[in-house]
């Protein structure tokens, strides 16, 4: 029976389908990535996020990743723009995308506080794209080397991309399965309360029940949209709703390219030939026509590729579920928070003081994180215990380097979680500079507050 299922999977994965969807996705991906990189330059984020910080938070196992010199950091973003455009044009596709992904991955590894779910998604989609033959149609590569042209691609690629998007929405929905979101409309009502200035819509945010209604709409949207997009009859309406939803989020929240990436990526749920249909609709029949030359290599998706795809899918399912290995509320202790598509489900602000003491000198210091961090880094760190731990280690090293000898570093971290009363996030009696970093349970993180979040009343515009 397992063998039969395997064979059915192999059969489905190998089945050829129109490659037009993949080429369109490549173009959209390349353009959106180039735009993302350009926004860093335009908004002066290169300096603020990568150059100005004196200290960078690192991912576990990647402490060796260091920022480039400022001029090279700026140059990297220009290179990423160029590479993004090359990807869109399908010029030296694998080289361009490979280098782009290396550069993009490097930037994410430089500082954890720059982590965003959509950067992670972009990295995963880029990796999938790299393995695909996305440059074999409507590309400079295919124009320069006609032999690589093809009209078809294995359905396995299409399924894999769809799976990846469905994972994002599904886990985003699961993350909303909490009383905070579904009963108390938090943190959404906090955010909506500050957006009543918004023309037309803003006034409605102060109506009773609207934040809760929007919370439920968000949950139901995330939970159902992949399925509604998969089903042919509901697909057009679902896509219209998806566009509305993401446009609304882009107006309400500073989430940058995320809505546009999702709107573009959701086209993956349409039949593979949707770009040709669209081109024909615009009278571009000649461009839309499938090529007469069909290469069989475009359909390659053998058992090995399928096995790799299944491993990938398993990892994508397991990583967001790793929070189950830890006790407590993941939104509080953050163990299992990243790479889990827990999009916008918590609002945390903290007041963190590092209590440094030198037993040998008999001295005590109280340090504000702002000594070491930019305001953005400080804000991110205040709610993430693993980052607090990293700074405690850094402070110990810093004091050692300043000639104060070995010191102990304890932390008073008071955090407000989804508007609740401030509560201590970490045990202030623990010398964090002796606690090893790692992925194991962290007993030095204190339990989350158990009280309900406050009820926030958005106020109308005067």
């Amino acid at each position, binding site marked *: 029976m397992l063998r039969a299922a395997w064979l059915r999977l192999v059969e489905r994965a190998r089945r050829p389908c129109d490659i037009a969807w993949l080429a369109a996705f490549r173009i959209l991906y390349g353009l959106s990535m180039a735009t993302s990189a350009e926004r860093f330059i335009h*908004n002066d*984020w290169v300096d*603020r*996020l990568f150059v100005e910080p004196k200290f960078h938070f690192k991912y576990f196992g990647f402490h060796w990743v260091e920022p480039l010199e400022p001029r090279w950091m700026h140059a990297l973003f220009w290179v990423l723009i160029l590479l993004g455009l090359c990807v869109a044009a399908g010029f030296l596709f694998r080289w361009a995308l490979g280098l782009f992904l290396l550069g993009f991955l490097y930037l994410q590894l430089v500082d954890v506080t*720059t982590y*965003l*779910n*959509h950067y992670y998604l972009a990295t995963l989609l880029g990796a999938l794209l790299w393995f695909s033959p996305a440059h074999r149609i409507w590309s400079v590569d295919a124009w320069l080397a006609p032999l690589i042209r093809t009209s078809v691609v294995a359905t396995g690629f299409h399924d894999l991309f769809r799976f990846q998007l469905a994972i994002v929405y599904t886990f985003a929905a699961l993350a909303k399965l909490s009383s905070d979101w579904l009963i108390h409309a938090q943190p959404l009502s*906090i*955010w909506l*309360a*500050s*957006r009543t*200035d*918004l023309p037309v819509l803003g006034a409605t945010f102060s109506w009773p029940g609207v934040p809760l209604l929007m919370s439920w709409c968000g949950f139901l949207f995330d939970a159902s949209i992949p399925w509604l997009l998969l089903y042919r009859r509901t697909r057009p309406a679902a896509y219209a709703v998806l566009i509305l939803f993401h446009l609304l989020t882009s107006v309400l*929240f*500073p*989430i*940058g*390219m*995320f809505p546009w990436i999702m709107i573009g990526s959701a086209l993956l749920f349409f039949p593979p030939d949707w770009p040709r249909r669209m081109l024909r609709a615009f009278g571009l029949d000649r461009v839309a026509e499938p090529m007469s030359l069909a290469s069989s290599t475009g359909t390659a998706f053998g058992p090995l590729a399928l096995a790799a795809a299944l491993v990938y899918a398993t990892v994508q399912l397991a990583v967001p579920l790793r929070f189950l290995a830890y006790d407590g509320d993941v939104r509080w202790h953050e163990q299992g928070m990243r790479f889990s598509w827990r*999009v*916008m489900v918590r*609002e*945390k*602000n*903290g*007041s963190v*003081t590092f209590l440094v003491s030198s037993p040998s000198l008999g*001295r*005590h*210091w*109280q*340090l*504000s994180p*702002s*000594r070491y961090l*930019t*305001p*953005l880094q*400080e*804000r991110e760190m*205040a709610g993430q215990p693993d980052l607090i731990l990293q700074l405690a280690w850094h402070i110990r090293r810093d*004091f050692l380097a*300043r000639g*104060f000898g070995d010191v102990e570093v304890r932390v008073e971290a*008071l955090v*407000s979680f*989804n*508007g*609740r*009363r*401030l509560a201590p996030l970490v045990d202030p009696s623990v010398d964090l500079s002796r606690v090893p970093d790692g992925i194991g349970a962290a007993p030095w993180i204190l339990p989350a507050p158990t009280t309900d979040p*406050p009820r*926030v*009343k958005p*106020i*109308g*515009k*005067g």
Partner: protein
Amino acid sequence: MPPSGAASAPNTPIARSPLQASATPSEESEPSPSPASPDERIDAGPGRPSTTPTEPDVAPTDAGSDHPSRPEPAPNTDEPEPSLEPEPMGPAPVEPEPNVPTPPAFTKQALIDEIGACSLALFDTFRGEAAALAEAASANAEAPSPDGQLVVQERWLSAMLVWQRAELFRFGPAAMTTDPGGRGLRDHIYAWNRNPPGNNRCRIEQAIAGQGYAEPGFADGLVVVRTLAALEFLTFYGGTDTACTAFDDIVAQGTWAALGEAELMARRADYAHVAATDVARRAEDLYRAWSPDGDDFLGTFTSPGNGTFVDEQSVLDAVGSAFFYLDKDVKDFKVGMPLALVPECPKASCPEAFESQYARASTLLLYENLNGFEELFAGCGGSADALGFDDWLVAVGGEDLALRMQAALDEAQRVVATLDPPLEDALLTDPSKVSAVHQAIKGVTDLLKTEFVTLLDLELPSSVATDND
């Protein structure tokens, strides 16, 4: 209750001012148990009851009112404070107020209008103080005398107390140029940037020796040799020594030593005149930048939807950012640095890091910082109807937080007001009292940095708005 011991021990041989005379019974930095004299009273300017060093303590929390724990307006009395004992804490009996009309529903626009009006009034008051300071400095420069210098000292302290409230109003033209509407004007009025003024004393003395203050480009030069910070040194320090080292030109070439005491006094008076005139000009610039008759930042501020502020929330974000002065500048530097809570102080304590080194008015200045915070938080009119961020908290359902923040602020004000002796002396005699000040201010800033910014969803401009998800 106001802090005691203002200007209690200037390390200057000049005659004592009424301030000093009333604050200390002796020349040196004795503990000063006596309350400040009525002569110390400072006019707080329009729109606010007189804030005087003899002002009674803030009112206890008023848990039953619509405005959580609003301080009562300070009576503008000429009677000196009869007792040094702090007012009892805890809820006060609530007077029934029949026939009081229901206040209109809170709106962000109303809060913005109120803050705008407060800002304009505060900067107007300050320009008046700065003009009076310049006038006094001018008179003393024309005919330097101990009495003239005393008048300059009084005017400096008077202006400084107003400015310390204005330090909390660092949004708009006073803010850094990277902030919305910022022109960096604050740094031209008071260039205390987390460094003790003594750090720049040699530069000021170089300007005295070389008469750099008389050169045409002086007003556009280094801020550390201008502003109220330099004026404090010029006005309150009467010694003939120099902070410059043997490697500095004025010492190596004997320029400083060649200045006699009388010449030094005359040059300091001249310099103070130039610096005070510059401060007065900058104060005028700041007022005009806000004034509807000038560059009308008030219009920009109160009518969001322009190139500076996209909406009401962004205006309040900018004001919310200004609250953080209490955390970084006041808690960490004005108090934390002298307490040696940061490694930059290499000793058990660093009294030389207090803000007011020469007038020794650090306690008073700190108290006015807290008052400035309160004006933004609870409203600046002093009346129960004055709109502040506490009203915004109440409007969004954060009554409890508004009460706790006001209580924490009351406590911080009480601890500073009842500090005896003043900060400079307490650090040497009983550092735990200074630690109590630090802890009390932290009680406010902890709430500020956590629940306050969360509940009002304040995005602080300085935290650089990047993408999110």
